C-alpha cells in the first residue's frame, strides 16, 4: 500500500514546476477518483510520502485504540456529554440574553418594555377599537395570555431554524455536543417568558381576577410547553442547517398557526366553530392551543367557570349562550339590565359540551411534549457530525 505511494516519480523539483504539478491532477475526475478505492495512489501520483508506514492503516488505528474523528457518539454517551455541559448551556443562555440588548440605550428595560408595548397595541386594537368580547369574559387577560404563551413557541421555532447556521464559527472552533445550541436558545426564550409572566400576572389582577392555588399549575404546563419547544427546536435546527428555505418559509407557517391556535378567540366557544366540531377538535388538539387553554384555565377563574363541560349540560342554557335573546323593554327593562344579563350569559358556555375535555388537554399536552422531544432529539443526534459543514 505504502510502496506505491513512496515509489512514485522522482523529485518534483524540476525547473518546470508548474507542468510537473499539472500531472498531479491526473485523469481521475471527481467521481472517478472517489470510487477508485483505497489505492488512489496509482502511477499518476507523484507524491513522496514517507509518513505512511507499512501495513493497513485501519488496523494500525484499531491496534492503538484510535477512533474515527467524525463518528457520532452513541445516544447514551451523547446525553451524558450534554449533561456534563449543563453549565455551558445555562451560562450561554444567560450571557446571550444579556447581550441581546447591549446595543440599545435602555438596555435590559426592553425586556419588560417590549411585552408591555405589545399589550398596549392589542388592548387598543381588540379592546377599544373593535370593542369585541367575542363571547369570552375578561377578554383582555384572555388575549394577553394567548399572545405571550404563543410567542414563546413562535420565537423558539424561528430562532432554532437559524441557530446552526448562526453558530458556525463556534461549531467549527470547538467540539461540544451540538444539541447544546438549540437547548440554549430555547432556554433564552424561556427566560424571556418568565419576565413576561410579570405582565401576564399584572393583567390578570387588573381585570379583577383573584390569586388562587391553581396559579401553581402553570409550572407543569410551562414545563410541558418547554419540552415540546425543545423537541421542535431540534427538528427545525437540523432542517435549518441543511437549507435556508426553512427559515424563509417558517414565519408564514407560524403566522398561520397563530391564527389557528385560538390566540384571539376561544376555540372551545367560538360560534362559527361550534357548527364544525371536527375542525374545532383538530384546532384544539394542536399543541400551542392546548398549552394556551391550560394556562388560561389555571390563571383565570372566569375561564374555569365558563369552560364548556365544567357544569352539567343544559341544552337551553347552551343555546342561550350562542344565541342570546335580543333586547326587549318588557323582558329586561333598562339597557343596563340587559348588559348585566349579557355579562352573566358569557358564563353559560359552561353548560355546553366541551370540544376537548380538560383531562384530555392535560393528557395530550404531556403526549405532545414527550413524543416531540424524543423524536426531535434522536433526529438531531443522527446528523451530529454534519453540522460543521455549513
Amino acid at each position, binding site marked *: 500500500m505504502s510502496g506505491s505511494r513512496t515509489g512514485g516519480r522522482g523529485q*518534483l523539483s524540476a525547473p518546470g514546476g508548474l507542468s510537473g504539478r499539472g500531472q498531479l491532477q491526473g485523469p481521475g475526475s471527481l467521481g472517478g477518483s472517489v470510487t477508485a478505492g483505497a489505492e488512489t495512489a496509482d502511477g499518476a501520483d507523484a507524491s513522496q510520502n514517507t509518513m505512511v508506514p507499512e501495513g493497513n492503516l485501519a488496523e494500525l488505528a484499531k491496534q492503538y485504540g484510535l477512533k474515527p474523528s467524525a463518528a457520532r457518539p452513541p445516544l447514551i454517551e451523547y446525553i451524558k456529554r450534554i449533561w456534563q455541559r449543563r453549565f455551558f448551556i445555562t451560562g450561554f443562555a444567560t450571557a446571550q440574553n444579556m447581550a441581546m440588548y447591549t446595543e440599545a440605550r435602555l438596555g435590559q428595560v426592553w425586556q419588560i418594555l417590549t411585552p408591555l408595548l405589545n399589550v398596549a397595541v392589542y388592548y387598543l386594537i381588540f379592546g377599544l377599537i373593535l370593542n369585541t368580547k367575542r363571547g369570552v369574559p375578561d377578554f383582555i387577560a384572555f388575549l394577553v395570555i394567548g399572545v405571550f404563551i404563543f410567542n414563546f413557541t413562535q420565537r423558539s421555532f424561528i430562532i432554532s431554524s437559524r441557530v446552526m447556521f448562526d453558530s458556525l464559527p463556534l461549531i467549527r472552533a470547538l467540539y461540544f455536543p451540538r444539541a447544546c445550541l438549540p437547548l440554549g436558545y430555547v432556554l433564552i426564550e424561556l427566560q424571556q417568558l418568565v419576565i413576561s409572566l410579570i405582565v401576564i400576572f399584572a393583567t390578570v389582577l387588573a381585570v379583577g381576577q383573584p390569586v388562587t392555588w391553581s396559579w401553581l399549575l402553570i409550572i407543569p404546563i410551562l414545563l410541558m410547553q418547554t419540552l415540546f419547544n425543545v423537541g421542535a427546536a431540534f427538528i427545525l435546527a437540523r432542517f435549518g442547517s441543511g437549507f435556508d428555505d426553512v427559515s424563509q418559509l417558517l414565519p408564514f407557517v407560524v403566522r398561520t398557526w397563530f391564527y389557528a391556535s385560538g390566540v384571539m378567540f376561544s376555540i372551545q366557544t367560538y360560534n362559527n366553530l361550534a357548527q364544525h366540531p371536527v375542525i374545532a377538535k383538530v384546532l384544539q388538539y394542536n399543541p400551542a392551543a392546548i398549552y394556551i387553554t391550560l394556562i388560561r384555565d389555571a390563571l383565570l377563574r372566569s375561564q374555569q367557570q365558563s369552560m364548556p363541560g365544567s357544569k352539567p349540560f343544559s341544552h337551553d342554557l347552551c343555546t342561550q349562550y350562542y344565541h342570546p335573546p335580543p333586547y326587549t323593554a318588557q323582558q329586561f327593562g333598562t339597557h343596563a339590565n340587559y348588559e348585566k344579563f349579557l355579562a352573566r350569559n358569557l358564563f353559560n358556555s359552561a353548560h355546553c359540551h366541551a370540544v376537548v375535555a380538560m383531562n384530555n388537554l392535560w393528557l395530550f399536552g404531556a403526549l405532545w411534549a414527550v413524543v416531540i422531544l424524543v423524536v426531535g432529539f434522536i433526529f438531531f443526534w443522527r446528523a451530529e457530525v454534519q453540522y460543521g459543514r455549513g
Partner: protein
Amino acid sequence: MADPMVVVDDLHVVYRVYGAGGDRGTAATAMLRMLRRQRRPSVREVHAIRGVSFVAYRGDAVGVIGRNGSGKSTLLRAIAGLLPAEQGTVYTDGHGALLGVNAALLEDLTGDKNVILGCLAMGMTRQEVKERYPQIVDFSGVGDFVNLPMKTYSTGMGSRLRFAIASAKSHDILLVDEALATGDAEFRQKSRRRIDELRAQAGTVFLVAHNLAEVEENCNRVIWLEKGRIVQAGDDVPGIIDAYLRASGGEPRVREPAKA
C-alpha cells in the same frame, strides 16, 4: 517509535457549494427549474481533499504547507472531526481543538464571558474554569479589554484570546490554522512555548502557516499539499520546504549557519 495519534487513511473531502453562479438567479429561472424538475445548477461540488494518507505520532508537530486553496484548512477541519469525509477515515484519540483566524467564538459577548463559556463548552467543570481563568487572561495579554465585547477586539487580540482559550485544556491534538499569523512577536514567542509544552505532554500539533520560517522553527514533520493531494510529506523539513519554494518559483530559504 511513539504511538500513533492521528491516522489519516485515504481521506476524501467534498464540499457542496450553493449559489456558485451558472444561472441568472432570478425568481423566474428558479420557477422554470422547479417546473422542469431540474437540480439546482448552482450546486457545485468541490473535491477539496483527494486521497490523503499519513500517520502522525505523539509529540509530533506537523506543518502543513501549500498554496491557497490546496486543501490545508480542510484537512485540519477533517482531522478535528468538524467536516465529514466523503470517503476514507481519520482516526484520532479524542477531539482536537481547531484554531483558525476567523473562528470568532461569541463575538457579541465580552472576552471574559468567552473565556468562561469556551472552557465550559470544552467540557471543563466550573471549578476548573475558575482555576484556569487568570492564567488564560494573562496568557492572552488582552488586559482590560477582557471586559469588552469580542467584536471590539483587533484581529490580533481576538486570535490571542482564542488561542489562550483553546490551549487552556490540555488537548491531545491542537490544530492551528494560521492563528498565530496576526499575533505580535511577543505572542508568537509565548505560543511557540505553549506548542512545545503540548508536544512535551505527548500531544500532537498541526500547524498551517504561509510563513515558512514559522513551520521550520516549530515542526519536525511537514506535509506539502497541492490540489488536495500530498506532493511530499516527511521529516526532512528544510528539504521539503525548499522543494515547495522551487516549485512555486521562489528561491530556497537562506538559513542562518546555526540552523543549516
